[in-house]
């Protein structure tokens, strides 16, 4: 079966927003002041049709419906108008029109994002980059690929493969998610510990600014002139500009890779084994952990021979040349033994390696079969806090009466608790969201972050008030304004207003002072 991250909560029912008080506040604030733009829908459509083919402008609510949500499908807003340009010039012309009439613009790739980054808003133009699917150039000598934003992550590696090269970041949704979306979210994947995130693997990007101007960040070599705007743009979630061309770094495909699976009766021992591997000076290509519920679900689904009795399993991949891998596998095996691994399996063939990965890679849809719905969280923590955090999650799980399966990018401290719930049960989604929020806030408490790779979008706006103080949020707003003074790009997302944080009462207390005392408290 094909699997994308987008299936994470695809099973959530179509939600009638007003009937669920749980997220009224989020949506109401997100929508913000309505109808700032002075242009009517008809005249916007008319203007767009002058520059785009007729079929590239969607405005009937039935035609725009497929764009009403991304992978965070609990939130839906039917966009006013959808534009499907094919050339950079068309994007520039669209942006000029929207800029002149102050129409908000929300860019969208494949819509696999999990934090609502591509959620439309009323009276907005949804800019789909789906038609930008061309791989413009694979340069096997300089080890780069120049691609359009709508190219899927996996398609880049496929195109590079004949040259013995590949594109390293591999989010689980890689067969569907686009490289433009990866840049917007600074996507990670299973191999980030060794090979980095999107920001570490992109060399140059071309952007259409909010007013239609074209600009390039980065360089043809390893850096560009001036400030590192390339780094700033990665992970900016469509708030600063529209990425229209990307040059990625390609790496040589490792000669050899092997996967070691180790089962543990005690999750704490598994955590200690992870630390011991790092302490031994090894940087595995991938280092993943699954807890018992996740193991059982994955085994039921993929039937790859995971030990279903185990409290936890670790999947550790080593890559490099054959001698190196053989030597390192031996060392990892010894470490796992020392930490009382009850069962160790090492892939002997490429087929077996892929098979063992299949269980992990299908964990999300597999867990999806355990309950009508599930909600996927994305916190990061210092590795040493793992058992403390898992204990806390298990306590909260009892308190909220909602089961949780844990899948963990153990190597880089990125935890994905999957909360199981039933959206048809009154109040359960609301309870799930409260539970999820507490997990993320706990991640911050132990020195981690509210999102490792899924982004803030609209989903984690409230937790931004926990992660940052008012001064940082103000600085973010100023940076946004440096690119988009009128606030037209993906408005109302990522960075909450100070007022919102005050309303939630979740603002950081900075240096012992109560933040923005000038604001009224409710």
């Amino acid at each position, binding site marked *: 079966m094909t699997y994308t991250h987008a299936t994470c909560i695809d099973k959530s029912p179509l939600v009638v927003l007003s009937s669920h008080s749980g997220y009224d506040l989020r949506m109401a604030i997100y929508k913000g002041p309505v109808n700032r733009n002075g242009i009517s829908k008809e005249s916007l459509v008319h203007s767009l049709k002058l520059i785009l083919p007729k079929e590239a402008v969607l405005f009937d609510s039935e035609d725009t419906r497929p764009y009403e949500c991304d992978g965070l499908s609990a939130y839906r807003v039917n966009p006013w108008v959808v534009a499907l340009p094919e050339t950079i010039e068309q994007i520039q012309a669209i942006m000029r029109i929207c800029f002149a009439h102050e129409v908000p613009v929300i860019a969208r790739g494949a819509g696999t994002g999990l934090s609502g980054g591509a959620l439309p808003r009323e009276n907005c133009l949804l800019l789909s980059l789906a038609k930008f699917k061309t791989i413009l150039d694979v340069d096997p*000598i*300089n*080890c780069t690929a120049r691609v359009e934003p709508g190219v899927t992550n996996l398609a880049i590696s496929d195109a590079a493969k004949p040259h*013995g090269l590949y594109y390293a970041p591999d989010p689980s949704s890689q067969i569907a998610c686009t490289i433009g979306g990866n840049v917007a979210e*600074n996507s*990670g994947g299973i191999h*980030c*510990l060794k090979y980095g*995130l999107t*920001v*570490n693997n992109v060399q140059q990007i071309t952007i259409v600014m909010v007013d239609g101007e*074209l*600009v390039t960040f980065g*360089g*043809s*070599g*390893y*850096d*560009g*002139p*001036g*400030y*590192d*705007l390339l*780094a*700033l743009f990665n*992970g*900016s979630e469509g708030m600063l500009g529209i990425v229209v061309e990307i040059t990625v770094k390609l790496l040589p495909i490792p000669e050899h890779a092997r996967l070691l699976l180790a089962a543990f009766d005690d999750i704490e021992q598994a955590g200690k084994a992870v*630390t011991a591997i790092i302490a031994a*000076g*090894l*940087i595995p290509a991938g280092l993943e952990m699954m807890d018992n519920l996740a193991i059982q679900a994955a085994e039921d689904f993929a039937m790859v021979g995971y030990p279903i009795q185990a409290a936890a399993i670790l999947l550790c991949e080593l890559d*490099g*040349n054959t*001698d*190196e891998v053989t*030597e*390192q596998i031996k060392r990892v095996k010894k470490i796992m033994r020392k930490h009382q691994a009850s069962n160790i399996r090492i892939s002997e063939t490429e087929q077996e390696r892929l098979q063992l990965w299949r269980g992990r890679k299908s964990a999300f849809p597999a867990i999806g079969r355990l309950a009508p719905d599930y909600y996927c969280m994305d916190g*990061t923590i*210092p590795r*040493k806090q793992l058992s403390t955090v898992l204990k806390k999650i298990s306590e909260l799980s009892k308190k909220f009466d909602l089961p949780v399966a844990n899948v963990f*990018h153990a190597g*880089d*401290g*990125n935890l994905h608790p999957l909360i199981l719930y039933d959206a048809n049960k009154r109040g359960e989604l609301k309870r799930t969201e409260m539970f999820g929020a507490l997990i993320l806030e706990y991640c911050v408490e132990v020195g981690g*972050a509210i999102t490792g*790779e*899924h982004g*803030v979008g609209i989903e984690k706006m409230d*937790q931004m008030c926990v*992660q*940052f103080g008012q*001064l*940082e949020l103000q*600085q973010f707003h100023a*940076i946004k304004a*440096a*690119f988009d003074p009128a606030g037209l790009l993906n408005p109302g997302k*990522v*960075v909450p207003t100070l007022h919102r944080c005050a309303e939630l009462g979740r603002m950081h207390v900075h240096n012992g002072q109560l933040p923005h005392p000038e604001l009224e408290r409710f």
Partner: protein
Amino acid sequence: MSDQSLSLQQQVKENIERGRPMQITAGNSKLFYAHEISGEALSVKEHFGIIDYEPTELVITARCGTRLQDLESTLAEQNQMLAFEPPAYSKHATLGGCIAAGLSGPRRPFAGAVRDASLGIRMINGTGEILKFGGTVMKNVAGYDVSRLMVGSMGTLGIILDTSLKIVPRPETEITTCYELTERASISRVNKICAQAYPVSATCFDGTQLFLRLSGTESGVNKSLDMLGGETLKDATSFWKDLKNQRHSFFNSTKRIWRLSLKPATPPLEIMGEQLIEWHGAQRWLTSDQNPEIIREIINQHGGHAIIFKNAKEDDLVFHPISGILHQLHMNLKLAMDPKCMFNLYRMYEGF
């Protein structure tokens, strides 16, 4: 160990109040680099010390005044290192200067740059506020990536107080092999090698020889060495250290020393002067008295950029000129971070 955050903040606030622009200083190891500026000297040298270091978390957090050599020897005790091999032009070089200048050493193409290792930052912005961005975890996409924006901004956007960097284990074995080649053959050879899965960790062409450093496990490195051949370089450690710290005789020149950033496989450049090529062709050092405008024109044609790294003349533009919307964005960002232009004005470009 000395936390001077509040005292530095106090000084900054006073200077802002009195309208006195500041130049940020520390170890003064890079005084030769970038435009000379005036302004109230604000030294961050006393704000030093390692705040947190747990080897198994692969992160170190330290204050900006921490000397690079102290930081690196602490890491070495645990058999770890900074992957980007920061250049240190004197023993006084500090972590803050390393982040602000954003310069990386020989390992950069293979293990990432300063900005790639940068995970979090605490800073003072141009309104005298202490801000904290990023953190100590490997993956963090909450908010804009200000930590990385600060890397290479030459102190024009604010004062770096503390920074958290990703660290890596030291490789078990390193061996350097070398070949006598022409420049053209060297560029072609090194790029062919780098496009294959060899454990290359540094490259250098000094005009006559191509040096190739291999890093990894002993068996892995030896196997690659068998396949790549060449002559093994003795005393390779000091060769790469001298190169990184620009003690190599190439850098003794009194001519302008340029740092050219290019596509790695760019063919030999037709510019008068001597060259030393690193990063499999992507970073080329040039000593030349040729007209800077002509040099930049040639580099532009290759899609690269050129910095006059050392020995710039008084009216030279040190950093590669930027124009149009890119220039405007720089101005806007400068004003977003430092609205009254209090920090290192004109260090990089005129006007900001």
